[in-house]
């Protein structure tokens, strides 16, 4: 889980062009949107692409995104759960 979280942080920084932010700046429990990392609706769509491209997981209902992408931790949990299947 630790390793997955670290990898996710790096992937998100790269995919979303978060210049001047390092993995150490991101707390895995902080919210990704709004106050936390300040991501917006286009970033949310980009995270859907990231899950599919890097982990082969397809989100069928975009409304689920809100819960899945709440924080790095919730994302990692979701990936772990769906990769096992």
């Amino acid at each position, binding site marked *: 889980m630790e390793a997955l979280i670290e990898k996710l942080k790096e992937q998100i920084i790269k995919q979303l062009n978060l210049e001047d932010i390092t993995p150490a700046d991101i707390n895995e429990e902080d919210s990704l949107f709004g106050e936390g990392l300040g991501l*917006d*609706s286009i970033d949310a*769509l980009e995270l859907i692409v990231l899950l599919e491209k890097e982990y082969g997981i397809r989100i069928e209902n*975009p409304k689920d995104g809100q819960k899945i992408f709440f924080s790095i931790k919730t994302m990692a949990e979701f990936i772990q759960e769906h990769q096992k299947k």
Partner: protein
Amino acid sequence: MAVRFVSSNIISSLGFSTEENFQNLLLAKVGIQTFNDPLLYPSPFLAACIHQAELEERWNETNQKVVIATRLEKMLILSITEALSKTKIDISSSRTAILLSTTKGNIDLLNPIESIDPERLLLWKLGEFIGHYFGNPNPVRVVTNACISGVLAINTAAMMLKGERFDHIIVVGADLVTRFVVSGFMSFLSLSQTPCKPFDRDRDGLSLGEAAGTLILEKTSFPEKGDILFAGGATANDANHISGPSRTAEGSVIAIQNAMSEAGFAAKEIDHINAHGTATRYNDDMESIAIQRLGLSESPVNSYKGSWGHTLGAAGIIETATLIESMKTDTILPTAGFHTPGTTEKLIVTKEPLSKPLNTCLKLASGFGGCNAALVLNKK
């Protein structure tokens, strides 16, 4: 001095002339259908495309010059040719200019086609090609401003006619349904699984469409009774978000206000509004808010996109051309796909054709980049 509309053409999934399209819209026909073409998108999707065989047939009939052209160029040339054929305007005159509206032009040339100059991917080269075809001596001006391109091009044409240089402006616009555009809108999760339902409670996204359209504008000191005149137009930016419309409809409100003030009409004088009406949740809600904020809620509203989809750079042109026919016949067209109201603010959306004197009408458009446009038409 006034600016009047003297001719038009529409080439879409619903036909090859303004008249044919108008008749089909009157019957609320839907040109949107399922495509299963892996070259366009890996899985089936919905779109409204121009009939391929008929396009080729018309091209072979019309094109005596043995010019090799792309699909988009054929659409543009055929559209101008047909609109022009109903007038006596000399397209080779220095007093006539061409304005091209498109979002992506020949974007399919990213994969080169043999015997086509790959430079025609560049929008100004595309414009130049069209200008040369018709022997027009002026530079073809190219407007590319997302989904307001068409309305902005008409506003620009009217502005050009206020100066001394031109008597006629030919506004032409087109965009294709390509892998590029379909994939992009898919990645935005903006495409509906069913033909789109503008302003409907259950709307869930837009349908893409393919079209070309032409409007010819003329400067005149003596408009005649029944002429449809360009009365005013404006654009504005939400300054809020690059892909989502403003929750307060800020930019749309400013554009409408400025267009109405240029035209010199008050809200109660607007007989009908042809909205952008893409059938995404946010766009249609936003338009309902703009219409309510400006006290326009009593004017019947419709959208043509339930019939021919969202035709991007052509949209503002073919929709204005249709609105002009609507005004000439005093008939508000139905909104295909609309059944149950369901926007933030209440609107009167037309389900059936509605007869009503149409003297002053409003056309709206909005697009990515937070841009909004409006124009006002008036019957002399």
